[in-house]
């Protein structure tokens, strides 16, 4: 088997708001480890998952470690495919400028098409 065939397309789907539950934070930890394995990783932000990327989060008052800035580190791990669902963004009254990282804002049909190409999809 060639090396190329060993590379799997793995999409992580962030669908929950941060802080209210641990799913997004532990999902991010999973992504950071997987990034070291040189797979074809992508992260899609759908629904409340988008809130994880919101600028100006200050968690000092709730006593939980913030992690929005960790998303900025993904680039350094070669995780560059960050997709945001346009409708989810608009419904929440947000724009790309409200987010801590550069993302590709896409229609659901386009993200769905990419999802369909994956070997593994993990919703967090």
């Amino acid at each position, binding site marked *: 088997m060639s090396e190329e065939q060993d590379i799997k397309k793995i999409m992580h*789907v962030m*669908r929950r708001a941060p802080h209210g539950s641990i799913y997004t934070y532990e999902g991010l930890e999973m992504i950071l480890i997987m990034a070291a394995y040189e797979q074809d990783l992508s992260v899609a932000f*759908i629904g409340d998952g988008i809130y994880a990327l919101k600028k100006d989060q200050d968690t000092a008052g709730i006593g939980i470690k913030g992690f929005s800035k960790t998303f900025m580190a993904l680039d350094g791990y070669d995780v560059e495919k960050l997709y945001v669902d346009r409708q989810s963004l608009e419904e929440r009254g947000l724009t790309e400028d409200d987010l801590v990282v550069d993302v590709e804002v896409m229609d659901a*049909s386009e993200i*769905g098409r990419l*999802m*369909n190409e994956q*070997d593994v*999809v993990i*919703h967090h």
Partner: protein
Amino acid sequence: MLHTINKSPFENNTFTTCVRFLQPGDPVLFIEDGVYAVQAGNRFGALIQSVLKKNNPVYALKPDLDARGISAIAEGVKTVDYAGFVDLVEEHQVSSWL
């Protein structure tokens, strides 16, 4: 890609969200509390029919329907047992919408 949904559509928008991302031909399987979506006569009947019309097969896990006392299900929805679930997974990669 097989899409599984495990949330009641009355409490959670997982089903309506998933539908926006479905590609033609992708099957949808309702499991756990997700099976409440396919009960005949509920307000999600029209959405189920629109999914079926786009050539997306819709399944519900029979043991989960039975456990919840659901016997009348929306027209066109097929039921599978766990073995049928395995067969669907053999045919498709999986996206579990938690």
